[in-house]
């Protein structure tokens, strides 16, 4: 019972707003630190690949961006489900706040992938299952943002957008397993928990960059959520006080 109460307590925009404000600098700092170390290892420490030369180093952006693009979508779908089931105010805002970062990550994944494809496969783009489904993911992000922007009533927008997120969630496993289900040009999964086929340094670099992206996503999402909260609750007393600068 108290657990439940706590959950609702933090799900209230009025409590979440200052909390997010306090956490943002920490996440931002972590993002910078992990990113710098990861890129340092990736770019300078990791050995040159005997097959691919230096070009392979794009992997340190490509793989973390691809992971994040899928993960952020899952998180948004999670918030959408919570919002539709319990009608909580914060969930819709969380989903909205995450969307641009997700789209950015999907775009990064496609872009770095395409850059890499030119030397590796001799072409920027092929219509294979993984690449296509990742492109669909980008379109889903864009479609979500367009849909919620087109609906003026924020609550209705949240609900409609949430539904779209849930419908699109089938795409994520397709991206992930596409290399297994269809034989594609794209490389199969080489990182898994039990054993890794990658050199250990490379793995570390990639994980660090991934962590950095993760922290970055949280920081920006919190920042966006704060503006969304202010916008939506602009008539609530606590927001008026906040804007007037009464609050410590």
């Amino acid at each position: 019972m108290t657990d439940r109460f706590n959950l609702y307590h933090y799900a209230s925009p009025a409590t979440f707003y200052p909390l997010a404000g306090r956490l943002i600098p920490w996440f931002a700092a972590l993002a910078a630190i992990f990113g710098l170390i990861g890129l340092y290892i990736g770019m300078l420490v990791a050995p040159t690949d005997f097959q691919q030369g230096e070009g392979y180093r794009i992997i340190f952006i490509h793989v973390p961006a691809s992971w994040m693009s899928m993960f952020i979508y899952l998180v948004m779908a999670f918030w959408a489900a919570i919002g539709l089931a319990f009608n909580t105010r914060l969930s819709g805002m969380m989903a909205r706040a995450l969307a641009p970062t997700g789209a950015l990550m999907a775009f990064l994944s496609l872009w770095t992938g395409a850059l890499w494809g030119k030397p590796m496969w001799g072409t920027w783009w092929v219509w294979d299952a993984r690449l296509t489904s990742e492109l669909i993911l980008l379109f889903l992000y864009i479609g979500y943002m367009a849909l919620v922007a087109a609906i003026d009533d924020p609550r209705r927008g949240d609900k409609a957008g949430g539904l779209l997120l849930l419908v699109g969630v089938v795409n994520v496993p397709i991206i992930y397993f596409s290399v297994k289900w269809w034989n594609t040009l794209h490389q199969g999964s080489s990182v898994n928990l039990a054993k890794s086929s990658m050199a250990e340094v490379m793995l570390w670099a990639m994980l660090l960059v991934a962590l950095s992206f993760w922290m970055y996503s949280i920081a920006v999402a919190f920042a966006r959520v704060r503006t969304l909260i202010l916008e939506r609750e602009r008539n609530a007393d606590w927001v008026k006080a906040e804007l007037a600068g009464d609050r410590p």
Partner: protein
Amino acid sequence: MHNIVFAVIARDLRLALRRPADIASAVFFFVIVVSLFPLGIGPEVDLLRKLAPGVLWVAALLATMLSLPRLFADDHRDGTLEQLALAPHPLGLVVTGKVIAHWLISGLPLALIAPVLGIQFDLTADALLVLTGAILLGTPALSGIGAIGAALTLGLRGGGVLLSLLVLPLYIPVLIFGAGAVDATVSGLGGEGHLSLLAAMTIAAIGFAPWASAAALKIALE
């Protein structure tokens, strides 16, 4: 229980027959788009034969999509949708009826005319058969997925374009496997694998889409 599905189908078909130009125009649109490509691309037969599956499928997609905005909009505008939502049965069944009617009006005629167009692209009898089968199997999925998009964008001005933005990406798998089936047949690999994937997508879409659409409709009606 299933009476309502049939009632909706009967009503929608009657409305469609009241303006037969509608059905005819979807088919004409399909025909015109398919014929536009040779115009923009040039007359080389080999090239055309290569393009055929892709062009036919893209045209089928667009023809379906063009009729989507009106799937719920008419009922919404004149208040019928409200009444349907207030009827004492699950809204999902109503939507199932509407999706089936939509397919009968827009998907089925496309499948019937597609082989005729395929002949002009110099496709073999085998390929034509697979083409027809693929369109028959794939278009119900297009109607189902389209219903979700139509419901989500209902009542939004400029919904038509937003709708295509939402729906087209979801149509891509149908396009890939639909065109893939024909391609595979042409190159002698056999299209069965693609066809069974299409069938799976259609079954999933028909089973699931009406309920997602119904949820979206309720949001639109608030």
